[in-house]
């Protein structure tokens, strides 16, 4: 027996430090589909439910930002419909709890005594709602009955949200209001992030039945039961609920004459995309009714955003009922909403919608319930080019405002500039802050250029939440159209690479023109739907090409074990014709973290890389920062590589939804010794030939019976013989003879897995451990 073979046998029988507990299958990654309620009030401690799949063994909860603490209370398997006996038992418990509140004699107890044997045999399945019924009010009991015994015909089977975890959340009184991200760590890994809102107002949870009246006077608990009168909700408040199939939810609140009430729904903003529904989100609609049940206001969107906002001047002091439903009456546990109601600050107009980096800029704002008329913009040169802020009023903060920070000089549009004769003269390069201030308005700008000059014209409006649906036209002095653009979309098949991730109507215009001769040119900007108004702001860039790029890293939640590597996708959004090479690196990463395969070749729009962790890294989450740098005209430019998730909408379309953090979670359960590739530089292979790739480790026993497979390799590249060596492991990469990918440069990702046979089964299962450090490959 050769020494290598002997060594290999030793590996396979040796006790591995890689335990099955951390064996991760690629398809069983923990996933959250919803949080309910999806937020809470500052200074409060409360429970929320996270629904998802593969959530076994939850250990910790992580919430981004400061001041929010959360822990796992309990996890639940998928809640099945109760069978006959369970249903009987559940109703008996409801009867007992409701009788206690109503002061009725304990007749259920009598039955219990008579039928103690059968009683013992009925154990209700664990269910997040069937807990501590004795402490509930009658309305809460009616709600629990309604949700638990919902007709099965109404509910579809949705395994992806069938498991649940009860989480206790505490929000510090001084926690910053706004959107956070919540992730849960399990034995298998870290879940995707979900939006969690921190608010300042009272939180209210819906109580069914509330379809026709906010507070019906009776409901079925065990039998039809009279319910005590309920007081209307005191504003301001945040109303929370879940829309089930065919469901309508109503809430009652009190308002006084003259109040300017803003009612803002958060539904799509909580769960941006549903993969298995059309349209691909909960499309909320809201209506407001007065005391005579007359509809006084309605909204099913706000401008182009699916989440509706109602603005209502209270004409008469009294009680009002608010209704919310899905516009086509779908529903599911993940149709979660939060509705902010009250005299809340709401910014409807902001101008300018951005500023030059490093400048001292305050934007003017207008809207409802605002005491501020200006809003200072943070223009710190380092940071993202698109930022968010809110107007801080005395007790509340406003809705989120999106603005841009750019490096070019800026100018402001000055009316009237509606005709070529009155066109506003500008000097390139510049960004013009303007508004299509009335329906049918056209803003015209003129500049001079030479034959062959390349001029970029880009509108940044919809991406900054402006309702403008821009149309750009370039003309010459004779009025002849040289170029026209309505919408500009960056997509790869069905993957939309819009940087906001949330815009589905890509209404901003963008074009590049090569000037045919020396002279004056006119840029015409209008709204393609002939709308306009003070809120129709824009930033129009007219400049020579400004080669640039943005980077998105998916997924935003990564999991590995100490010592192993994990793979990420880096998407490049190239701008103004930039085709150059980009070098991606980790920024301020903990010692021992290493990014491999960070070079994105020229012209390439996507690369896979790996992030390796040190073997002695303790378990827990690590927030990562990544950045990319490139050389543009002898200048080095550095851009952040932001975390994002590749999310599907309506069975087909995909979007890169940005996340606040890029998190890597070191799981418990084992370690893998570091594996380092022998040699440097890319592995070069000719068609029809092969190459040997070696990895070295200081702990040969530690890599034991691992197996390898290529993960999405270039077509025609296959894995050959895998051989243990005295220093580690080596394998053969083969290239097919008729390989068409000549000249291809790509990182090769190699999965590490092991196989095991569960006790009593013949089937072999595969457990994924991680990946080898990325291997750059060149096809010669």
């Amino acid at each position, binding site marked *: 027996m050769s020494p290598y073979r002997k060594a290999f046998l030793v590996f396979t029988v040796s006790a591995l430090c890689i335990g099955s507990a951390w064996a991760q299958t690629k*398809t069983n*990654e923990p*996933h959250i*589909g919803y949080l309910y309620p999806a937020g809470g009030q500052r200074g409060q401690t409360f429970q929320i439910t996270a629904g*998802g*799949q*593969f959530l076994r063994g939850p250990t910790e909860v992580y919430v981004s930002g400061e001041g929010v603490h959360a822990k796992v209370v309990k996890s639940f398997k998928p809640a099945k419909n109760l069978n006959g006996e369970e249903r009987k038992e559940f109703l008996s418990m409801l009867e007992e709890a409701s009788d206690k509140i109503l002061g009725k004699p304990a007749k259920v107890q009598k039955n219990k005594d008579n039928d103690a044997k059968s009683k013992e045999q009925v154990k209700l399945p664990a269910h997040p709602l069937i807990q501590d019924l004795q402490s509930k009010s009658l309305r809460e009991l009616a709600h629990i009955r309604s949700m638990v015994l919902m007709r099965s015909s109404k509910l579809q*089977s*949705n*395994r*992806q*949200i069938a498991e649940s975890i009860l989480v206790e959340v505490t929000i510090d009184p001084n926690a910053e209001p706004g959107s956070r991200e919540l992730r849960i760590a399990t034995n298998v890994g870290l879940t995707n992030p979900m939006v969690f809102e921190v608010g300042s107002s009272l939180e209210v949870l819906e109580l069914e039945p509330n379809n026709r009246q906010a507070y019906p006077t009776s409901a079925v608990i065990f039998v039809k039961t009279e319910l005590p009168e309920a007081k209307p909700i005191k504003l301001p408040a945040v109303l929370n609920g879940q829309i089930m199939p065919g469901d309508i939810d109503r809430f009652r609140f009190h308002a006084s004459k003259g109040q300017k009430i803003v009612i803002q729904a958060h539904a799509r903003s909580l769960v941006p995309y549903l*993969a*298995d529904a059309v349209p691909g989100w909960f499309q909320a609609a809201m209506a407001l009714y007065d005391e005579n049940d007359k509809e006084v206001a309605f909204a099913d969107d706000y401008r182009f955003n699916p989440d509706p906002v109602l603005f209502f001047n209270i004409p008469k002091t009294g009680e009002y009922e608010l209704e919310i439903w899905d516009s086509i009456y779908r529903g599911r546990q993940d149709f979660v909403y939060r509705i902010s109601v009250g005299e809340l600050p709401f910014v409807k107009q902001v101008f300018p919608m951005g500023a030059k980096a490093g400048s001292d800029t305050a934007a003017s704002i207008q809207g409802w319930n605002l005491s501020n008329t200006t809003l200072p913009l943070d223009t710190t040169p380092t940071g993202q080019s698109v930022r968010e802020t809110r107007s801080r009023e005395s007790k509340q903060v406003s809705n989120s405002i999106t603005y841009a920070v750019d490096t070019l000089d800026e100018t402001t549009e000055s009316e009237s500039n509606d005709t070529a004769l009155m066109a506003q003269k500008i000097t390139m390069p510049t960004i013009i802050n303007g508004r299509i201030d009335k329906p049918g308005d056209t803003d015209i700008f003129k500049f001079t250029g030479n034959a062959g000059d390349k001029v970029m014209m880009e509108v940044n409006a919809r991406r900054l939440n402006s309702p403008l649906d821009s149309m750009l036209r370039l003309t010459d002095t004779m009025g002849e159209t040289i170029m026209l653009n309505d919408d500009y979309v960056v997509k790869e098949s*069905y993957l939309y690479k819009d940087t906001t991730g949330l815009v589905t109507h890509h209404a901003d215009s963008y074009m590049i023109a090569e000037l045919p001769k020396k002279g004056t040119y006119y840029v015409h900007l209008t709204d393609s739907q002939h709308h306009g108004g003070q809120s129709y702001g824009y930033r129009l860039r007219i400049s020579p090409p400004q080669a640039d790029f943005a980077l998105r890293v998916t997924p935003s939640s990564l999991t590995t074990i100490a010592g192993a590597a994990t793979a990420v996708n880096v998407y490049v959004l190239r701008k103004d014709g930039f085709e150059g090479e980009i070098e991606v690196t980790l920024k301020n990463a903990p010692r021992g973290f290493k990014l491999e395969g960070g070079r994105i070749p020229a012209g390439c729009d996507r690369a896979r890389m790996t992030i390796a962790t040190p073997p002695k890294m303790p378990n827990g989450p690590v927030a990562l920062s990544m950045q990319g740098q490139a050389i543009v005209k002898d200048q080095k430019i550095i851009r952040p590589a932001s975390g994002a998730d590749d999310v599907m909408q309506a*069975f*087909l379309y995909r979007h890169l939804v940005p996340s606040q953090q890029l998190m890597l979670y070191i799981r418990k359960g084992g370690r893998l010794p570091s594996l380092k590739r022998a040699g440097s530089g890319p592995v070069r292979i000719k068609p029809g030939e092969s190459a040997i790739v070696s990895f070295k480790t200081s702990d040969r026993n530690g890599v034991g019976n691992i197996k390898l497979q290529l993960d999405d390799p270039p077509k025609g590249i296959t894995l050959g013989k895998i051989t243990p060596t005295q220093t580690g492991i080596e394998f053969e990469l083969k290239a097919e003879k008729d390989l068409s990918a000549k000249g291809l440069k790509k990182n090769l990702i190699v999965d590490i897995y092991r196989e095991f046979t569960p006790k009593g089964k013949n089937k072999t299962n595969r457990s994924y451990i991680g990946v080898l450090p990325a291997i750059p490959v060149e096809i010669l």
Partner: protein
Amino acid sequence: MTRREALKKGLVTAVGLAIADPRCLYAKTAPLKAKAKSVIQIWMWGGPSHLDTFDPKPEAGNDYCGPYNKPIETNVKGIRICQMLPLLAKQADKYSIIRSMTHGVNAHETASYRVQTGHEPGRLVYPSVGAAVSKMRGYEHGYKGMVPPYIVLTQPQGRFSEAGFLGPRFKPFSTGGDPNKTPFIVEGVVAKGISDKRQRSRRELLHKLDSLGKAMPGSEQFDKLDKCEDNAYDLMFGDARKLFDLSQETDKMRDNYGRNTFGQSCLMARRLVEQGVPYVTINYKGWDTHKQHFQIMNRQLPEMDKAMAALLADLSGSGLLDSTIVWWGGEFGRGPKIQWNPPWNGGRSHYGKCFCSVVAGGGFRGGNVVGKSNKYGTEVEQRAVYPEDMIASIYTLMGIDPQSPLPNPRGLDVKIMPVSKHGGILKEIM
């Protein structure tokens, strides 16, 4: 013919050759001979999985073939199909499988339009094959059948306008109802809960109330209305009604097709083509299997297998297969790689890059495979067949020149089918 006449004719022909589109010239001078008189289109609504029907890939592994990893041999050596189609395996000599269908579109609406019209979406909305056949082989060309020339069993598409720019006159007649129920409630022919006696008494009452019609005997307009009414009542009480009455078939025959909506729709389609209806579409729902794919396949494939095999055997046995094209397929295939991850948990996505279709009869030779997909069914490896190639083949077999002009509201010079930029019609099986 004098020398002068011969020269004149020669000159005219030469001028004609010089100015005419060669394809049109071909159409006018050499009309195509029709081999097929009718088409039965089995529209697999939602897009059937190519891997789980006629292009199995057991070698691709569990992530691609799932539990269907044991394809079965057919009665044609070398052709294997999914293990869930044993009855169709015995009929393989009657049909050909196109394993290299492609158009690259993954959205239902656009893909349905592509596959049913053969055209790329554009400013003109083209008619579906059925509507075009209805135009070219329907009432304007001597069709005198008792029912409309383009029948849909049982629900219309809804994904796009079948008639396109040809207008409502060429829309299909959708039967509604369920042929597996007795009676088969056919829209406008058999009314639910209304007896014949009651229907006739309604007509009599209507006539009694028709004071204007009585006051204007001999009016051309009223005569036309009366004629329409007579036609409608012929449908309701005449032979047409018998045509839709499946109880006239033996129980054994009905059982052969399967006692379910699809099975009885296939039987109904056979009855319709027997009567000379040129185009029948069976809209077979339930193939958009994003979730629970294999559970649904376990239920649906046996139903499809039984009905389609019975249809082929029945048409073949009666000799009708020689003049009837059976065209099986959907708007696309399904993702070859199974989506095990949430929310799909074992589903298949839309896949327009590579999928399969099946054709039989009417001039299509059976027992063949056209084209080839790669090991995983993800890409076409040989002989890409686009919808326009498939549809042009069907038109050709029906004696309709794919390059015939098609009247349209904008008066543009458009042809029934665009000239193929790819492999062209399926000559290898025609």
